[in-house]
C-alpha cells in the first residue's frame, strides 16, 4: 500500500475503513447478487475473494460524499435534486447503466419537472435499498451524532425515495455515525434502529434478523444461519432483491454475527445472497468504521482503485480513500486540499444548519 495509514482510531482512519469496507463489500458481493445462499455455496464454497470491480454502491456513495463536501450540514433536498439534474440526468445520453428501479424512476420524475419529495414518490420504488447503499458518508460526516446523520441521509433520500427506503438510509447513516466512535456492533445497530420508528417494516425486519443472530447463532452453521434469515425476512412472493427493510436487516445481522470484524461481516453478508453487493457494502461500512483502515484485509484494499464511473460517469476517477479523507477533515478542521478538491466542484462547508426533519418517515 502506498498511502500511509492514518493514526489508529483517528477520523481519517475510521472514515477510510468505512468506505474501503463499503467498496470491498460491494466488489465481493457483486457476483453473488440475486443468488441464493445455496447457489453461492455450490459455486464458491465460501465467497471470500474479490473477483471484479465495485458497482453502484461505491459510485453513489462517492456522489453522496461530494454533496456533503459541497453543502455540509446546510444540505437541502433541492441541492440534491439540482445535483441529480446537473450531474446525472443531464449527462445521460442513452441507457442508465448499473442503475436500479429507484434511480431510473427518479430520473423520469425529475425529467417530468417534479422535485422532492414528489420525485421520490412518483415512482413505486420508494422502498428500494438505493439510499441505504449510499448513506454511509452521512454517518462519517456526522460521526458521533446519529440524529444528524439520519437527518442528512433523509434530505438526500427525499429526492429518490419515500417511506421505508428513506428509513433504510436513516438507519445505515445513524449506525455508521456511532460506528465512527468505535462503539461495538450491538450499540451500533441499536443506534441505527433508534433512527427509525419502531412501528416500521425496517425495524420489524431488523429486529427479527438480529434475534436470529443473538439467539445462539454462533452455534449454527453458515448455511443454517442463512436459511433462518431468509425464512424470517425475505419476502417470498416478490421477484426482486432490492427491498431496503430486507437489505438493512441482512446487513445488520451479518455485521453483528461477524463481531464487527470487516472480513467476517462482509463475507457473511455476501454469502447470504439477495442484494449481496449492497448488503456486503453496508456491513463493510459499519465494520470498517469501527475497525479502521487496518481492519480491511489488505488483499481486498489492494483491489479497490479509483471508480470507473460505470454507473455514474460524474464520479469516474475518484477514490474512496480520498473521499474518506476529505469527509474526515471536515471533522478535524484540517486544511482543505488534496486530489478530491477539484472533483467535488466547491469548497467543503462544515457549518451546522438545515431544518428539514424526518417528515417522510413511515
Amino acid at each position, binding site marked *: 500500500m502506498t498511502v500511509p495509514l492514518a493514526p489508529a482510531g483517528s477520523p481519517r482512519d475510521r472514515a477510510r475503513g468505512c468506505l474501503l469496507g463499503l467498496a470491498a463489500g460491494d466488489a465481493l458481493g457483486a457476483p453473488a447478487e440475486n443468488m441464493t445462499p445455496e447457489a453461492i455455496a455450490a459455486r464458491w464454497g465460501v465467497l471470500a475473494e474479490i473477483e471484479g470491480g465495485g458497482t453502484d454502491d461505491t459510485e453513489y456513495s462517492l456522489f453522496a460524499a461530494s454533496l456533503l463536501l459541497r453543502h455540509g450540514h446546510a444540505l437541502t433536498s433541492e441541492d440534491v435534486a439540482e445535483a441529480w439534474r446537473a450531474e446525472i440526468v443531464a449527462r445521460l445520453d442513452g441507457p442508465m447503466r448499473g442503475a436500479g*428501479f429507484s434511480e*431510473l*424512476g427518479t430520473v*423520469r*420524475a425529475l425529467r417530468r419537472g*417534479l422535485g422532492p*419529495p*414528489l420525485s421520490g*414518490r*412518483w*415512482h*413505486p*420504488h420508494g*422502498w428500494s435499498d438505493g439510499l441505504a447503499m449510499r448513506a454511509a458518508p452521512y454517518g462519517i460526516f456526522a460521526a458521533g451524532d446519529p440524529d444528524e446523520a439520519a437527518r442528512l441521509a433523509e434530505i438526500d433520500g427525499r429526492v429518490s425515495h419515500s*417511506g421505508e427506503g428513506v428509513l433504510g438510509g436513516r438507519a445505515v447513516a445513524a449506525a455508521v455515525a456511532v460506528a465512527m466512535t468505535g462503539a461495538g456492533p450491538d450499540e451500533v445497530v441499536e443506534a441505527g434502529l433508534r433512527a427509525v420508528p419502531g*412501528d416500521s*417494516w425496517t425495524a*420489524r*425486519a431488523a429486529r427479527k434478523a438480529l434475534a436470529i443472530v443473538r439467539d445462539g447463532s454462533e452455534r449454527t452453521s453458515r448455511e443454517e444461519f442463512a436459511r433462518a434469515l431468509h425464512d424470517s425476512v425475505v*419476502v*417470498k*412472493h*416478490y421477484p*426482486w432483491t432490492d*427491498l431496503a*427493510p430486507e437489505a438493512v436487516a441482512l446487513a445488520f445481522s451479518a455485521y453483528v454475527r461477524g463481531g464487527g470484524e470487516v472480513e467476517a461481516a462482509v463475507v457473511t453478508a455476501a454469502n447470504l445472497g439477495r442484494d449481496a453487493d449492497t448488503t456486503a457494502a453496508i456491513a463493510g461500512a459499519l465494520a470498517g468504521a469501527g475497525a479502521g483502515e487496518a481492519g480491511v484485509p489488505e488483499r481486498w484494499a489492494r483491489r479497490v482503485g479509483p471508480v470507473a464511473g460505470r454507473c455514474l460517469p460524474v464520479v469516474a476517477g475518484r477514490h474512496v480513500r480520498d473521499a474518506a479523507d476529505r469527509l474526515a477533515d471536515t471533522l478535524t478542521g484540517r486544511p482543505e486540499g488534496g486530489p478530491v478538491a477539484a472533483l467535488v466542484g466547491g469548497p467543503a462547508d462544515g457549518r451546522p444548519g438545515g431544518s428539514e426533519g424526518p417528515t417522510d418517515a413511515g
Partner: protein
Amino acid sequence: MSSGGGGATPPPEEDRILGAFAGLAIGDAAGWPAARHRSLRLAPWSRRLHRELDAFAEERQVTTLPVPFALNQPVEPLALGPSDDAEWLAWTASTIHENRAEAFGRLAQREDLRARISVWSALDNLAAGLGPPASGHDNPHFFDDAAAVRAVAFGAAGMDPVADAEVTNSGDGVLGAVAVATAVGALVRGAPMRQAVDAAVAALPEDTAIGHAARTAVAVAREHGDPFSAVPALDAALLDHVYSYGVTAAETVPIALALADAAMSAAGSPGSASAPGSTGSAASGAAFGAAVSAAACLASVADSAPALTGALAGAYTGYEALPRAWREAARPLAGCCLPELAGTDLLDVARTLASGGPKRSGPAQDATAQDATRQGDGAQSGLRQNGSTQRGTA
C-alpha cells in the same frame, strides 16, 4: 356538457350496483391479460409449453406465437370472460360483513389461490402473525390496486373500504381504494359522473403519487374530450414504463377516473336523449364501451384499468344500459384465482349485496341514499369529509 343535466328518470340504485359489478367484469374481460389469467384453468403443461414457445420465439425471432391453446382440454377458459378482478370482487362482496383480517386469514391457509404480489405478501404476513395495517404496509407492492378493485363492493354497499384495504395495501394502495369507493358510492346513489370523480380526486392528497396522477389524468382527458382521443396523452402523462407492474394504483385508478369522466361527460346523462335517433340508454351504453375500450388500449395497465373504468362507468349507466352480449359474457366466473368461484354468476353476488346481504349484520339502509337524485346534494351526503364512504354506520 355536464352529465348532471337531463332530468330523465335515473336508473334505480340496485340497477346501478349491478352496473358497477357487471361493468367491472366486462372491463376485466376486455383487457388482454384476462386470457392469460383464464388459462390458469387449463392443465399446467399447457402453460409450460407456453414458456417453452416463448424461448422458441426469442431464438427464431418470431413475433407472434400460437398461444394460449386448449389442446385436448375444454376451450371455455379461453373464451371471452372475466378473470382475477371479477373474482376478487365477488369474494369481497360475499365476505363484506366479516372482519377483514379474519376473512383474509382463511385464505392464508390455502395453497390453491392465484393472487397479486400485494395479496400474497399480506397473506404471508397474516400467516406469520402480522395483522393489519402492518400486513399491508410491510409489503413490497403495497401501492397496487388490489384493494381498489375490492373497494367497488364497499362503495356499492356504502361502506368504508379502509379496514379491508389495509390488510393488503398501504399508502397509495389504500388511497386508491378510498377513491374508488368514494366514486362508486356516489354514483350508485345517483351522483353525476363529474361530481363523483371530483369527490374521488378530492380524497387524494396532492403530494402523493396517486393524487398528482389523478389530477393530471383527469385534466388530460378533459382536454382531449373523449376517451379514445385521450389514450396517447394518458400514456405519456402517467406511465413511465420503468417498472412494469401493471396494477399500480397510482396509474390505474387515475386512468379509470379520467376515462369514465371523459366518456360520460361527452355522452350526457343516462336516460337523456342526447343523440338524435337513439335512446339515452343506448347512448350511455356506447359511452361505457368507449371508456372501457380506451382503457384496454393502454397495454401496460390493461390488467385492471379497464375493469376499474368499467366499474365506474357501469355504476353510472346502470346494468340495463350495458351492451347485452357483454353483460352475458361477463357473468360466469372462471375460478382462475379462487377456484371455488368457477361457474358462479357474478350478477347473483351483486344482487345479494344490493339487497343488503350476505349475512347482513350491519346497519340498515340510510334514508338519505334512497332520496338521492342526480340533481340533489343528497348523493354526496354519505361522503365523509375525508372522502371515504361511511354511510349509516354511526
